């Protein structure tokens, strides 16, 4: 009986942790090179950990990044805010005989897909994460 209670406690903790971790969705990066010896990179990261990771990034690196991106921070913040209003939209699409590039919002994520002969790249991340990152960068602008 005691073991069952412990197991239930552990299971519910794991379930709660999983739900909490994935509540903001997943950042997904897939890069595939379709050639002999080509690399295949697949990264799935819970969006929740990004602000936490940024929090633990050395201040000097954050300040350097913030300084570089400073002129574009208001644009990124506003863009993220606006994109949240359009969770399903095909914003840009370029198709030709060989290549296909698409930038769209889908299910509250910003997706960038590039297909070209021998290579494909997919990047998807929750729009809210973009806003959060720009917020953290704003806080790290030197003298702000």
């Amino acid at each position, binding site marked *: 009986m005691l073991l069952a209670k412990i197991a239930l406690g552990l299971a519910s903790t794991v379930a709660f942790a999983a739900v909490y971790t994935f509540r903001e969705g997943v950042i997904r990066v897939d890069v595939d090179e379709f050639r002999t010896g080509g690399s295949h990179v697949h990264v799935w990261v819970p969006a929740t950990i990004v602000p936490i990771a940024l929090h633990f990034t050395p201040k000097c690196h954050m300040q350097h990044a913030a300084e570089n991106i400073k002129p574009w921070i208001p*644009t990124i913040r*506003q863009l993220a805010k*606006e994109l949240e209003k359009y969770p399903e*939209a*095909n914003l840009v699409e370029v198709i*030709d005989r060989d290549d296909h590039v698409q930038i769209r919002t889908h299910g509250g994520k910003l997706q960038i897909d590039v297909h070209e002969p021998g290579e494909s790249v997919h990047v998807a991340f929750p729009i809210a994460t973009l806003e959060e990152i720009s917020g953290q960068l704003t806080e790290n602008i030197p003298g702000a």
Partner: protein
Amino acid sequence: MFNRTKRFGAVSLVFAMLALSGAAAAYAQSGSTKDRWLHVRVINSDNKGETVRVNIPLELAENVLPTINKDHLHNGKITIDQAHLNEVDVHALLNAIRTAKDGEYVTVQGTDQDVRVAKEGGRLLVRVKDNKGSKSNKSDVDIKIPMHVIDALFSAGKDELDVVAGLHALALMGDTELVSVKSEDSTVRVWMDSKNVSD
């Protein structure tokens, strides 16, 4: 007496509902800027067969543009280099067009090109048709810009184009085609409607 009061109340209620639904319909007709989309489509029919589709919500453009400060673009306004205007007073020119009646202003029928500039139904129309050159080089260009959008664009000042004001004026319009370019190997279309897809 009681019945008459009751009937009067019911009739008033019906009128009030009709008035409210009319107002709601009018508001829906005018449309909010949120559901207006600017579309650009370029189709090249050369051997690569490239197609470009861009769909941008006008509200997004209106709100994001003022945050961009780069080169000639500042706070949603583009600074016009006077050197490119060749001493032309654009504001005076626009004022003259605004107050003028509908009609054709410029018609040039040349061996190279036919050009027509006209004002029709509150829009400035520009049409350029190539007559010369190989078939693949010929193109027809149609530009239809509502006058109040032009007014909004030039509302900022002498040396500035207020893009955000122009977009806002555009967003208050119904579905409309703005630019169309047709040639043998490519077509370009810029238009606005309430759909979030271009086809």
